[in-house]
């Protein structure tokens, strides 16, 4: 925490993460800047999902420090964790939609949890679903949707709360090129409105879109950064 960086919204200092005896991240340090567009890549098992989880306290760090928008995650009070998580819109690798709720309810949940007004919620939910092309499936349940459709709903949910930071874990994993492009331009829109975007992926096509920093993980360590 020696060097002050006013522009960093996320700072990780010498972070270690172990699952039992298995090390998923080793002495990992990284600053992510406000309004940055960052790709995290690396082969399967390199630690990409783990890195994202540490940011929203999906997992606690084993060692080291993580700061998110001024909050020190190792010191955060239990009742502040929901506030931390509302800073993020998270697109999970396995979508994590609630099977007993409709698409509309799944997306609305984020806004209800944040205590928004019901009238505002309906409008907002419809608008984000329209942006990912899922408005007409609003009343369907997740299991009646294809993998790609579920992924689009997951993206809409992540964006619904106008989060400061969007974390996306393989957001185009089960999408064809065209749908992937819809999602990416959707994320671009949020980026241009000031959101910080962090995407974990091994999709070469996404990485080739340019204009973003790409960090590569290997065995839980930072291997390379582009542009350097």
């Amino acid at each position, binding site marked *: 925490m020696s060097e002050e960086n006013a522009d960093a919204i996320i700072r990780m200092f010498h972070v270690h993460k172990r699952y039992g005896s298995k090390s998923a991240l080793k002495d990992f340090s990284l600053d992510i800047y406000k309004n940055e567009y960052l790709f995290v890549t690396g082969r399967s098992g390199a630690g990409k999902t783990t890195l994202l989880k540490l940011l*929203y306290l*999906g997992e606690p760090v084993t060692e080291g420090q993580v700061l998110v928008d001024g909050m020190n995650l190792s010191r955060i009070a239990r*009742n502040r*964790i*929901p*506030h*931390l*998580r*509302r800073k*993020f819109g*998270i697109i*999970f690798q396995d979508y*994590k*939609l*609630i099977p*007993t*709720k409709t698409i509309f309810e799944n997306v609305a*949940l*984020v806004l*209800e*949890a*944040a205590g928004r007004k*019901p009238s505002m919620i309906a409008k907002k939910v419809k608008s984000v679903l329209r942006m990912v092309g899922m408005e007409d499936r609003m009343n369907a349940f997740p299991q009646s949707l294809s993998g790609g459709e579920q992924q689009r709903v997951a993206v809409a*949910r992540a964006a619904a*709360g106008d989060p400061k930071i969007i974390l996306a874990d393989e957001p185009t994993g089960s999408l064809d090129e065209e749908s992937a492009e819809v999602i990416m331009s959707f994320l671009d829109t949020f980026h241009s409105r000031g959101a910080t975007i962090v995407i974990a992926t091994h999709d070469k096509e996404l990485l080739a879109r340019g204009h973003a920093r790409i960090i590569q993980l290997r065995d839980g360590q930072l291997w390379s950064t582009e542009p350097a």
Partner: protein
Amino acid sequence: MQRFYRRAIKDILENRFLTAITVITIALSILIAAAFALFFVNAGDMLNFWQKGIRMMVYLKTDATEAERLDTKFRLQGLEGVQEAVYISKEEALARLKAQMAHHSALLENLKENPLPDAFEITLKPSTRNSEELGFLAERVQALPGVTEVEYGQQWIQRFTQVINLFSLAGSGIGALFFMATLFIVANTIRLVLYSRRDEIEIMRLVGATDRFIKIPFYLEGMIQGGAGTIIGLLLLYAGYLALALHFAPGMAGGMIQLRFFSVGVCLAVVLGGTLIGWLGCWVSLKQFMK
């Protein structure tokens, strides 16, 4: 708040079978516990009635003179615990007996002479209406000159009081047991619902829902189950009470004693209690579940 209710109702509908079992079990628990309570209320009434009605009969020697009688009356009225001493002559006593045995009065017509003694009927002050004081007073009355015999329902009242006390002890025990049972049932149901919803709860947390937001619908659910179960239990008891009151009440103590149900206030308090147990059961489960 409205959407918490909606979520709770939706949950209840989705777990209809589980909820129905819970509500029925709570209803039965309440039914049994409340039936005991109702029994005590009425038994207490009855005891009270009998105690109020306690009279002591003081029989006089057959050859007592007018002066002796007056003397006895003054002495009786001077005793502590005596409210009033009313003279009942043997003629009066016979007339009463004839009136009570209206259909068999022929038996009495054949009497050559009145076999009944003159007597005083003593009504007692409230403080004397327990078996100890009664026994003490009876001894003193017996010691008066001109008195042959003292009669009162001591043994019988005493035994009845003991039985009631025993029952109320057992009743409190049973009440406590059913309280625990109800609590356990609600806690268990909520636990099952929580378990079936664990993924959903985890997702809610990940998207930034507070514990409060997650818990409130479960609390509502527990309270609705507790309240509904209690209401059903009381309704069942009321139905049973009506049936009993209709069939047996007229025969009891010549209609002097009336069976009664709990007052509206007590019923409301019981329902509130049931709701509170629902809340408590939920609290127990959530405490375990949400580490």
